[in-house]
């Protein structure tokens, strides 16, 4: 019998519930068992569905569970969907998550309080639940549930060290910026419902694909809104600012949420909606441009960072840019392919960084490191493999996916060539800054303090095993998507995902492939660029100990400082949005509420009181005045009434 899909999210949810409620009481080993158990179990369960699916005809499966919200013409079911796209996500989300759970055992070992430990694993499970809901959802609303759920977990886990102000701030920032994206997502959903009268994928996409002419006008706006959501979640310019700060969380979190899985949700969503996006070409272009620019922009910043995780964070942003570039030029499958490979090597990189951090007793400044190669070989080799992967050196995973992206942007009409060139340059940049950190971390002399020096040691097995696995994956994962030049069926993933890219009536999906010669050429170029990047970095940092870059930095201090300060975007936002908002809030309160509204009320009340205080003195106590008032009153009446007759 096959396991119903709803079980998948429920397993980690149960894990979360158990750890959340009882974890503190029963201690670390119990928590570990439950947490990792849940992750492992869900991985098994997932593959128990995936393998038959992959073997079979990849037919989409939709499993409704129960009606969730039903009002008027809105009826949202809790129902799950298994199709190639969700299958792909499912496959690596569960597996990577499991690995990282294992890793976390070792990493969180030094967490002193049982409560904290339990909290950590509970949150991880909760995240898994949300992520699976996001991936398996059959309707936009249910996806949004997962969407917000992962956001919540990222918030909770970034702020895991709640007593450190920067962590707390980072968590809040992450959530708020994501909320800005969600705002777009919400409007997108409203638009979709208003246009298609439903929020279920099958129905929406069917209608869109059947009568594109009827719907395409509305779709530009809708897709734009959806993409804003994606920008928030997947840290694209201008909403990327939360991701670097999010590194305040424990490293496994950075690896799982902020590298491998959650941040790619945006790409997943865009791919999921490819039917809609393809009907809004201008938005597609926008996506491509934003992605491309983000790739370059983040890459540039990464060059000048000295915090190991920060560099990785910016590289993540940059890689996400690549993925959107792919989607933007219409190569959704390629984008997803990069999601997959990136998940492997970026997770590997982060975990490696985690080990380093572990060894350096939480110091992340690469300027204090150096020569760790000898002391922690496993870490080094895996890290190196992942670096080569991300730099796009064949035959490592990154090469194939990135090359595919470049190729498809190259063949894209319009801005294609420009995008390709920028992408290419960024590839070189990536190779450079990645190998820069490798050199500074693992080669040369150790530059840290004494006690750091003799504290440095290889991480325990719980941490290294996942490293090795991921290292291997970052070597082989790319082979799923060998380019066409390696033969008709070399590319597994493309055809596998093809059904997701539904044909649209009146739009011819089929575009002619590049001539092999061009393709070879492109590969060669990109490899060359990547290699030169590596070489440069090796020369400057491994060999010459960073004199050249120092000279360059000295040559143009302003520019260097700017880059080192991440172009001061945070400060810019502070001036543009944060402080004005705070000011406006305070002014509204003090002026509108207190001064104007209450002022008016209190003033009128005061006037009445004043009148009373004044009038009471008419009561002079002199009885003659009383008689007079009496008499005057009488006269007034007489004049008014009799005088009239």
């Amino acid at each position: 019998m096959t396991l119903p899909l709803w079980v998948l999210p429920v397993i980690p949810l149960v894990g979360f519930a158990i750890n959340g409620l009882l974890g503190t009481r029963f201690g670390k080993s119990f928590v570990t068992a439950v947490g990792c158990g849940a992750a492992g179990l869900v991985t098994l369960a997932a593959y128990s569905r995936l393998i038959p699916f992959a073997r079979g005809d990849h037919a989409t499966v939709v499993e409704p569970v129960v009606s969730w919200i039903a009002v008027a013409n809105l009826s949202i079911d809790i129902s799950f969907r298994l199709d190639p796209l969700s299958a792909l996500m499912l496959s690596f989300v569960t597996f990577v998550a499991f690995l990282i759970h294992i890793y976390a055992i070792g990493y969180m070992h030094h967490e002193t309080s049982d409560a904290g430990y339990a909290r950590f694993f509970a949150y991880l499970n909760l995240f898994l639940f949300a992520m699976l809901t996001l991936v398996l959802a059959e309707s936009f609303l249910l996806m949004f549930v997962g969407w917000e759920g992962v956001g919540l977990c990222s918030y909770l886990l970034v702020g895991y060290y709640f007593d450190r102000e920067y962590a707390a701030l980072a968590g809040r920032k992450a959530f708020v910026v994501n909320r800005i994206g969600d705002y777009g997502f919400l409007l997108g959903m409203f638009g979709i419902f208003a246009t298609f009268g439903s929020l279920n994928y099958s129905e929406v996409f069917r209608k869109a694909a059947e009568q594109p002419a009827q719907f395409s006008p509305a779709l530009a706006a809708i897709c734009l809104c959806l993409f804003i959501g994606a920008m928030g979640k997947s840290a694209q310019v201008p909403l990327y600012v939360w991701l670097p700060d999010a590194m305040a969380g424990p490293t496994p979190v950075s690896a799982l949420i902020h590298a491998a899985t959650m941040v790619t949700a945006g790409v997943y969503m865009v791919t999921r909606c490819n039917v809609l996006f393809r009907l809004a070409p201008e938005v597609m272009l926008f996506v491509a441009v934003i992605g491309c620019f983000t790739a370059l922009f983040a890459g540039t910043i990464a060059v000048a960072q000295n915090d190991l995780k920060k560099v990785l964070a910016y590289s993540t942003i940059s890689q996400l840019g690549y993925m959107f570039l792919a989607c933007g030029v219409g190569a959704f499958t390629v984008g997803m392919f990069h999601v997959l490979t990136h998940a492997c090597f970026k997770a590997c990189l982060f975990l490696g960084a985690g080990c380093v951090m572990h060894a350096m007793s939480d110091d992340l400044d690469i300027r204090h490191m150096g020569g760790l190669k000898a002391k922690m070989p496993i870490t080094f080799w895996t890290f190196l493999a992942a670096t080569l992967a991300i730099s796009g050196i064949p035959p490592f995973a990154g090469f194939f996916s990135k090359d595919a992206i470049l190729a498809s942007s190259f063949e894209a009409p319009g801005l294609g060539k420009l995008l390709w060139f920028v992408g290419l340059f960024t590839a070189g940049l990536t190779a450079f800054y990645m190998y820069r950190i490798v050199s500074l971390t693992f080669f040369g002399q150790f530059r840290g303090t004494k006690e750091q020096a003799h504290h440095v040691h290889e991480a325990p097995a719980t941490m290294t095993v996942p490293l090795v696995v991921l290292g291997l994956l970052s070597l082989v994962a790319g082979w799923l998507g060998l380019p066409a030049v390696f033969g008709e069926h070399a590319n597994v993933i493309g055809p596998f995902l093809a059904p997701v890219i539904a044909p649209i009536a009146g739009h011819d999906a089929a575009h002619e492939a590049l001539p092999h010669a061009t393709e070879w050429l492109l590969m060669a170029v990109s490899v060359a660029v990547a290699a030169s990047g590596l070489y440069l970095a090796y020369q400057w940092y491994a060999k010459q100990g960073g004199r050249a870059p120092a000279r360059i930095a000295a040559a143009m201090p302003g520019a260097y400082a700017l880059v080192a300060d991440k172009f001061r975007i945070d400060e810019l936002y502070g001036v543009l949005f944060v402080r004005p908002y705070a000011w406006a809030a305070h002014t509204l309160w003090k002026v509108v509420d207190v001064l104007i509204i209450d002022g008016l009320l209190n003033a009128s009340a005061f006037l009445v009181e004043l009148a009373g205080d004044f009038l009471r003195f008419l009561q002079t106590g002199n009885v003659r005045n009383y008689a007079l008032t009496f008499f005057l009153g009488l006269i007034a009446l007489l004049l008014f009434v009799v005088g009239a007759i």
Partner: protein
Amino acid sequence: MIGSIPLSDVLLVSGALFSIGIAGALLRRNAIQIFLSIELMMNAANLALIGYGAALGTREGQIVVFFVIAIAAAEAAVGLAIFVALFRHTETIDVNKINLLKW
């Protein structure tokens, strides 16, 4: 007409007396004088009653006056008693000086 006296004259006299009474009540400060003025006002009313009664050819006017006189007497008794009682406290019956209770 009452005999040879037109009613309007009687009423004018009564009105005049009434007004004078009011004037006294308003302008005097000695409680007793105020009260005297009020007595005058009542007498003005009496005059009007008698005049009307005569003009109407009924005795009711006189009867009313009869009662009014009785009432006036009673009022006088009480009023003067009050003045005396108050005088024990204030040593004056100048109402300008009597304003413990005010505002």
